[in-house]
């Protein structure tokens, strides 16, 4: 009952946050100087006026906002100015799978690599193994994705020819992309896991378990792991936001036609509805992830529920 109420309030808060994000991006994009019709080719003034009328840009901003919300509720994201003949929905439907694949594989790799490294380093705390692993991890944090990406591309795609570079069609460049993303986030996860595992391992109930003669591996995985993993779960929310930001870079490095590429182009060209559409997708993703994290945390750690 308590849990249900907690999750319900979290859900309501997510909806409120989504509304705030949609509103903020609408006004941020619309108040920006310049506009979608400022082409290199000089369009006659009266044509620009007519286009503005067509799209309803001649009306006052609050009216446009209300119209936008009305269309959004019906699921209509509007046309894309930068991709002639395409609606925003079509652009997103085409590019979203690319980004989703990239992000999902990256996240999986980050977890699959980061958690074992963190647990292992914590179990061998203050030994040479621990120091070596943690130095490597700290080094990894400081080499940004936009250096690792080109280097991986150079090595595995150009020199060794294992992967294609760029071009999404039937290409394996996305593998390098997700490896780039995954390696970077695994460093954060490894550090977090190590820190929280060490904290859990120094608690009294672990000493009791040791005194009872529970084998070390069982202590590590049956007793400590559940508590030690909670901060990592909490990190998944920010990690998704970070992965989205990271995918902008990776998509640009490997030339993958994902959502990030479209978003950046839309932002620089003032493709209003595409900006709003992509940001809405990003926001829904982040908020869904945050909500799932809350659910997971409530399940892993009953204290979370009581504290709210």
């Amino acid at each position: 009952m308590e849990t249900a109420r907690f999750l319900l309030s979290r859900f309501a808060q997510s909806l409120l946050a989504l509304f705030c994000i949609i509103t903020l991006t609408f006004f941020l994009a619309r108040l920006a100087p310049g506009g979608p019709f400022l082409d290199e080719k000089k369009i006659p003034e009266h044509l620009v006026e007519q286009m503005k009328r067509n799209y309803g840009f001649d009306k006052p901003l609050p009216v446009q906002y209300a119209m936008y919300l009305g269309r959004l509720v019906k699921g209509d994201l509007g046309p894309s100015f930068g991709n002639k003949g395409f609606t925003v929905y079509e652009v997103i439907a085409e590019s979203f799978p690319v980004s989703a694949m990239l992000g999902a594989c990256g996240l999986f790799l980050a977890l699959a690599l980061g958690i074992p490294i963190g647990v292992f380093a914590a179990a061998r705390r203050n030994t040479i193994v621990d120091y070596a692993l943690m130095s490597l991890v700290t080094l990894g944090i400081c080499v940004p994705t936009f250096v690792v990406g080109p280097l991986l591309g150079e090595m595995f795609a150009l020199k060794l020819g294992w992967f294609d570079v760029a071009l999404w069609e039937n290409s394996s460049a996305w593998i390098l992309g997700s490896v780039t993303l995954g390696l970077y986030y695994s460093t954060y996860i490894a550090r977090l896991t190590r820190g929280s595992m060490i904290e859990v391992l120094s608690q009294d109930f672990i000493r009791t378990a040791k005194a009872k003669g529970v084998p070390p591996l069982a202590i590590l995985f049956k007793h400590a792991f559940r508590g030690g993993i909670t901060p990592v779960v909490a990190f998944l929310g920010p990690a998704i936001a970070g992965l989205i930001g990271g995918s902008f870079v990776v998509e640009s490095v490997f030339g993958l036609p994902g959502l990030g590429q479209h978003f950046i182009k839309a932002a620089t060209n003032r493709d209003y509805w595409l900006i709003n559409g992509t940001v809405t997708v990003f926001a829904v993703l982040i908020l869904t992830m945050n909500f799932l994290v809350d659910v997971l945390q409530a399940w892993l750690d009953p204290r979370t529920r009581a504290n709210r």
Partner: protein
Amino acid sequence: MLSPAPAKSTTIEKGSSLGRDAWLRLKKNHLAMASLWFTILIILVSFLLPLVPGIPDPNTTHPDLQSMPAFSSATSMDGKEVYYLLGSDPLGRDVFSRILYGGRVSLSVGFLATFVSLTIGVIYGAVSGYLGGRIDAVMMRIVDILYALPFMIIVIILSTYVAEMGDWKPVRFLNELFGNSLWLLFLCIGAVEWLTMARIVRGQVRSLKGQEFIDAARSLGLSQSRIIFRHLIPNTLGPVIVYTTLTVPAVMRLEAILSFLGLGVQPPDASWGSLIKEGADLMASDPGLLIYPAVVFGLTLFCLNFLGDGLRDALDPKSSKD
């Protein structure tokens, strides 16, 4: 105001201040100290070395001296002897001097944006924690909602403003004052980076308000300002300093990503991010263009992170027992 402490009390008990303790602990951490010296060195070199007369201009192109190797010297068309410490790029610009100037941009953005976020975060957090009650709840809910914002996206949208606001009068004035439109960039980054700082300061202020040592200080008859300046603020300062040190590399990374995506520094100006981008494009033909700025950038981030970790160990009251 603070009244001068009676001389007697200082002779009886030679107290060791929090800052001094922390400094002693930090000095024992060789890695953190090395990081500190390296950071200071990088800052001094980036800001002072370009003032030395012999250093070439980072934006001067030499069409006849393209892609020179490192440690080479050549005579340019106008008969001048040019020495390339780290070679030149395909436009004949000196890579070493571009890295120096790029460092100036990257470090300024890092520190100034951090300063913006520090100011907003500390004030917001302290007000929220100090007032408490309903105002605190509302203020923290706002932070919660902002946390869910994809802030990288907001920065990108804001940074596209930068390119097109040059005609607006106040913007033009500030552009002329700073020499370019970078100030808008660090304002944008600072404006979205303050959330964690606000949470940290609020938490500190709230927990300190009710602690025994504050009661003890009060019952000893210390003045209000002495309690605030000698007992409350030094205790919030620890986490604030640590988090500030860790924010600088985060902000520098963000600036580098923006510049890499072509949204930050505009050519011919350079930052470490834009230099890495130029290098990544030409990696196959001239790997040095990528490697030199990437190594300098990576080392700087590495040191700032280690310095932050070292400061955390030094300033954390929990670790002061061992």
